[in-house]
């Protein structure tokens, strides 16, 4: 190689290199243009799309559940409140190794198969990604601690505070208030889906259900920014929820307690009404249940236990229909006077039994079973306070079932007249038309005889009996029974005009006459053989501080089995139901009560004293005297408390 040759090559090499470099630069420029076009496409053409995407990733709208309205009794005692509960929650997207975590929770805090089933259901219902779902509700402090210590082994799980419904009085008010429980899929379909976005629970029964729309409130919203792991980084905006309205009930929790205690170990139902408003002062049904069990979804075992118990604790006896027995007599007596079918003095000779003309069937008076005799000569007043059956059997020969029906309907029998207790039974108030429509048979005269003593087809709820007693006490003035006294604590009491017309009599004094007869049921009236059926159990035990009117009822539940011999202990299911209606003070009534004791056997002996205890609890002050606000302006009709 010569020097010349190399130099020449150098130039050639340089040209070759420069051409190659130029090609490289050209290709680079083209590719760079490609990048610019790509970026411009993403940032200009698709800007709107990706902006929305970006917001969708990070901005989440979270519903903020409104605080449920608080329920108070008439004196401002809290009956249903919201209490903070610490829940274990999980965000599914962040829960890596969910099965391992659940296994750990089984060891740590006894996470059960039942809990797991509930969790799976909640996870299925969840709509918003990265939203948390409760795993276990209302953890104890020990449980919170053991979860916190093991937090690192539970990715995606967290402890969250939440307000949940709480019933401080437990089973005392379960039937009166109802309860809230997890929203079911069926309920979801009919709900305002938007307003219930943040809400897990809904009123299932009672006041909680009827006033759901008031108690619930309006959902609020929070726009939050979440990071990629679903953690809320900041709240961008917030629309506060509107809390549900507080509600004040007519209920008096002290009276409720007294009534519940008075019923003792019996099963049964009690209604006490404020006769000046129709407000429900007490609604007891025993046995009861703890409504707090339903919060956060009742467990399968708890529900099975409640639902299959033969004592049927979930069943509200205060609103269920039963044969009213003799408690119907004052109303039929009034009907007889008002229709002119009987005068006050008309008397019947009661030999202890009764037969319809042309019928061989013998109807016995209740006295027959104890002393094989009757009440002898009985007028209406005595027929009421001594509860003479034959007098009313006799009345049934003159009064048609339709007349009974029409008159009793004015007192609310056969209908649910309550303003806000839709779950109450309508009872059964038979008539010719009713029987034809429901049974498809004509009415037989013997059935009128049964109806005249509140047996046969006739059925009424304790609520209806208390209502009828209230109308009787008020001399026909109607107030529809209502749970709610006031909406909002500071508001005025609700004044509802009664949809039921006041009961008008041809002779207003008949109210006093029947009221007087009912007073004689419990007060002394001339001594042995002439006292009311309940005297020995009420005024006879301890003098009354006010005039009480009442009427007992003892209703047969089941005909005795054929092999039953007199003197044997009656099996519980064959024992008669005991009932008692009452109101007081007779001169200016303030409270009306109906007591139903399932298989209580004695209307006067068992249900009567319970009714009296309730009246005492409501009317009497601490020294056993009538509270000043309850003292009637008029003088007493009867000498109260006279031996």
């Amino acid at each position, binding site marked *: 190689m010569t020097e010349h040759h190399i130099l020449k090559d150098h130039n050639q090499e340089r040209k070759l290199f420069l051409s*190659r470099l130029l090609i*490289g630069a050209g290709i680079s420029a083209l590719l760079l243009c490609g990048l*610019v076009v790509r*970026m411009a496409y*993403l940032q*200009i053409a*698709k800007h709107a799309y*990706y902006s929305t995407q970006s917001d969708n990733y*990070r901005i989440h709208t979270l519903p903020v559940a409104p605080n449920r309205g608080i329920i108070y009794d008439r004196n401002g005692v809290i009956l249903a409140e919201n209490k903070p509960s610490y829940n274990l929650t999980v965000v599914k997207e962040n829960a890596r190794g969910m099965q391992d975590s659940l296994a750990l929770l089984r060891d740590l805090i006894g996470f059960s198969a039942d809990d797991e089933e509930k969790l799976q259901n909640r996870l299925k219902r969840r709509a918003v990604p990265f939203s948390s779902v409760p795993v276990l509700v209302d953890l104890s402090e020990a449980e919170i601690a053991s979860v916190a210590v093991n937090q690192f082994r539970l990715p995606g799980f967290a402890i969250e505070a939440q307000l949940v419904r709480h019933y401080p009085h437990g089973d005392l008010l379960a039937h009166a208030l109802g309860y809230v429980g997890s929203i079911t899929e069926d309920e979801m379909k009919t709900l305002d889906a938007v307003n219930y976005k943040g809400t897990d629970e809904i009123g299932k029964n009672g006041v909680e259900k009827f006033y759901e729309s008031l108690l619930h409130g309006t959902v609020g919203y929070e726009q939050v920014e979440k990071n990629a792991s679903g953690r809320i980084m900041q709240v961008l905006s917030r629309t506060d929820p509107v809390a549900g309205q507080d509600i004040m009930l007519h209920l008096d929790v002290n009276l409720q307690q007294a009534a519940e205690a008075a019923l003792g170990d019996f099963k049964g139902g009690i209604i006490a009404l404020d006769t000046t408003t129709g407000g429900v002062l007490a609604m007891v049904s025993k046995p009861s249940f703890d409504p707090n069990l339903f919060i956060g979804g009742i467990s399968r075992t708890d529900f099975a236990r409640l639902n299959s118990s033969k004592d049927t604790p979930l069943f509200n006896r205060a609103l269920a229909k039963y044969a009213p027995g003799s408690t119907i007599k004052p109303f039929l007596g009034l009907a007889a006077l008002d229709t002119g079918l009987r005068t006050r003095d008309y008397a019947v000779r009661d030999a202890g039994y009764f037969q319809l003309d042309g019928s061989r069937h013998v109807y016995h008076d209740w006295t027959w079973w104890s002393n094989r005799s009757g009440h002898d000569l009985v007028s209406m007043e005595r027929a009421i306070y001594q509860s003479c059956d034959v007098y009313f059997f006799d009345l049934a020969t003159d009064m048609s079932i339709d007349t009974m029906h029409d008159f009793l309907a004015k007192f609310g029998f056969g209908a649910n007249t309550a303003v806000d207790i839709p779950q109450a039974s309508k009872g059964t108030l038979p008539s010719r038309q009713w029987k034809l429509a429901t049974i498809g048979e004509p009415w037989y005269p013997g059935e009128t005889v049964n109806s005249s003593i509140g047996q046969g087809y006739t059925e009424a709820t304790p609520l209806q009996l208390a209502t009828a007693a209230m109308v009787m006490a008020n001399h026909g003035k109607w107030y529809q029974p209502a749970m709610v006294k006031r909406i909002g604590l500071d508001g005025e009491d609700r004044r509802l005009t009664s949809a039921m017309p006041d009961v008008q009599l041809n002779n207003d004094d008949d109210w006093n006459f029947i009221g007087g007869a009912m007073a004689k049921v419990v007060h002394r009236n001339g001594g042995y053989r002439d006292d009311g059926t309940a005297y020995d159990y009420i005024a006879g035990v301890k003098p009354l501080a006010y005039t009480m009117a009442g009427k007992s009822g003892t209703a047969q539940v089941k005909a005795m089995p054929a092999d039953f011999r007199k003197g044997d202990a009656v099996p519980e299911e064959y024992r008669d139901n005991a009932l008692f209606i009452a109101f007081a003070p007779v001169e200016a009534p303030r409270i009306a009560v109906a007591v139903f004791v399932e298989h209580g056997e004695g209307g006067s002996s068992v249900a009567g004293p319970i009714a009296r205890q309730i009246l005492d609890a409501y009317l009497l002050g601490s020294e056993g005297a009538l509270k000043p606000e309850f003292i009637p302006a008029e003088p007493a009709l009867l000498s109260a408390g006279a031996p």
Partner: protein
Amino acid sequence: MPVPPSRQPIRHLREGLERKRSWAERLHVDGPLLLALLVLLLFGLAVLYSATNQNPVEVRRQALFIGMAIGVLLFVAQINVRLLRIWAPWMFLGGCVLLIGVLLFGDISNGAQRWIDLPGLPRFQPSEVMKILVPLTVASFLSRGIMPPTLLQVLVSMLIIGTPAVLVARQPDLGTALLIGVAGIFVLLLAGMRWKWVFLVLTLAVAAAPALWFFYMDDYQKNRIHTFLDPEREPLGAGWNIIQSKTAIGSGGLYGKGWLNGVQSRLDYLPEGQTDFIVAVLAEEFGLVGILFLLTLYIVIIGRALYIAGAAQDLFARLTAGSLTLTFFVYVFVNIGMVSGLLPVVGVPLPLVSLGGTSIISLMTGFGILMSIHTHRTARLGF
């Protein structure tokens, strides 16, 4: 002192050369290139500050690396490029030994052995060093002969390129292996390798691709290709990165959301926002305007480097400068192309911007060589 008239022109020329030797030339620094690099590095730091969620520790560390890298650049620029031509093959051999060492004793991070800890030296990735040594060595080898290269020269060059590339690929780090290969092949292309051989190699590569797919590539690599072809396939898994980076870029719009106002990286939606995906953060906060500014900086740097390559005096310098420049462009293109969804996700950082000391130091070493090439010119060039 009187000067003989016969020497006047020479003296005049010398004076001229003396006058042109500014401070930059005395420091062996190329002013325009250094200025563009500094602006890019500072801009990069600002983006990084946002991308690290305003983490001063990370930014300070990066600033320290940048300072070190500038030091390395200045140091390398002092070394006469002719010396590099002689040293390159020996350093290349040392590099290959280190790569074998990595495979045998290296630290494992992210499932691959890339790092080596030599006593007295900071922990570093030998594969990173090879990105520079391979083109230097190929250029050194080719500059001994006459261009265009003969078949033998091409085959030897292929061996020089292939050995470290295969070693790096076995770490496994296919991305870096490919970039090493690209840097070496650029030397061959610039040297004037015949087109028919180029097309032959390309045809062979295309033919070998399926074999590579079935017999060589790991699942994670296949997955990246799958994801590139269809990011929606696994929106919460492998496709997440690319969906989130496109969202970040697109939501930036023309002017961006403003510095420190990007949400995609701040809320951790954008993974690797400080490293490989940092351009998405930039695009989200500075918009298309910011991207154009970034690309302009790269164009200035690459343009100046191409000028240096074109003006280089000897073959070794030309080939080295040209290859380093084009490789730098490939980094830029591959990174932005990957983040914007044009290319599959490969682990290539955005040059001089992404968090990471090794990459910045090795890139600045390359620019040091470029400056050395430009400032160690002999007067002969004047003719």
